């Protein structure tokens, strides 16, 4: 395993490498299936366009959460442990869109239990449209031998902002 990303290597303003992905109907349908989301607007073109009045089926929220997790832990490596994610959907991600995720470090702290936390603002664009904004809090090691996953009970405080 390569050396883990540690808190001393991160500073406010750091940019995460962007991730772009060409979304297809399969992307949307596999994402809905993977999250057991059977609502028709995520697999039924007719329902989405006629009933919901949108241009196509669109990516569901829980699958977007999975994309945000993948994007963040691609950067942290496996020792990165998500504490909290919050996202707001402003527009939809449709087949044919190129989805791009970008992230910026907004805070770096060590809490009173000694856990290292990085706060991130992440955006998901669908082509040029801002589809979803995400605020995330992820724990990363304070040293190469630290492991946030070992934290339990009172030593794990994901809810603090």
């Amino acid at each position: 395993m390569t050396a883990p990303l540690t808190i001393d290597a991160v500073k406010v303003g750091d940019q995460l490498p962007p991730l772009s992905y060409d979304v297809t109907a399969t992307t949307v349908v596999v994402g809905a299936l993977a999250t057991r989301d059977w609502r028709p607007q995520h697999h039924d073109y007719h329902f989405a366009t006629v009933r919901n009045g949108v241009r196509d089926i669109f990516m569901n929220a829980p699958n977007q959460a999975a994309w945000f997790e993948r994007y963040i832990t691609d950067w942290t490596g496996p020792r990165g442990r998500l504490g909290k994610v919050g996202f707001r959907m402003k527009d939809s991600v449709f087949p044919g869109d190129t989805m791009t995720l970008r992230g910026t470090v907004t805070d770096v702290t060590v809490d009173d239990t000694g856990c290292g936390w990085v706060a991130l603002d992440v955006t998901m664009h669908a082509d040029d449209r801002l589809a979803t904004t995400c605020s995330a809090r992820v724990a990363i090691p304070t040293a190469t031998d630290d492991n946030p996953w070992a934290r339990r009970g009172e030593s794990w405080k994901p809810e603090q902002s």
Partner: protein
Amino acid sequence: MSEDLPADVAALIDQVQYEEAGEFPVERGYIWTSAASVENGNPLFWDDKVAAELTGGPIAPPSMLSTWFRPHHWAPGREVQRLPLQVHFDLKEQLGLPEAVMTDNTITFYEPVRPGDTISTCQRLRSVSPEKQTKLGTGRFWVIDVEYRNERGELVGVESWTGFGYRRAA
């Protein structure tokens, strides 16, 4: 809180509703399906050696939390498809708002979810807004919390959803 809210809806605020156990245990097939759906190569989900070293064995991606609470498409003996986040669908019915979308989702992660866990949930309606007009139509925003625990009673996560129920503009 909205003053024009029907009393039966107002009475539900902060009440525990729909205490439910997952229909079947957390299993690795779904974990791999989820990781594959977003091409997530995190070795925690694919390499047992890494999972043993870092997380004491395999875990599910934290963001899968809500997956474990959604009913499957069908189950033996079930006549009507069960809906996830039933409080959301109840509100649509009670408030006469035929369409709805989710706008905000916040998830806080506690104990990791592991294959074999059975996840139990309960739902709480936290708030309902006055009627508002948006580009989708006229309706109300509401916030619903879902609390997730494993079979040992340990808190594994809390999820907060903001939904907007509406009537489409004519």
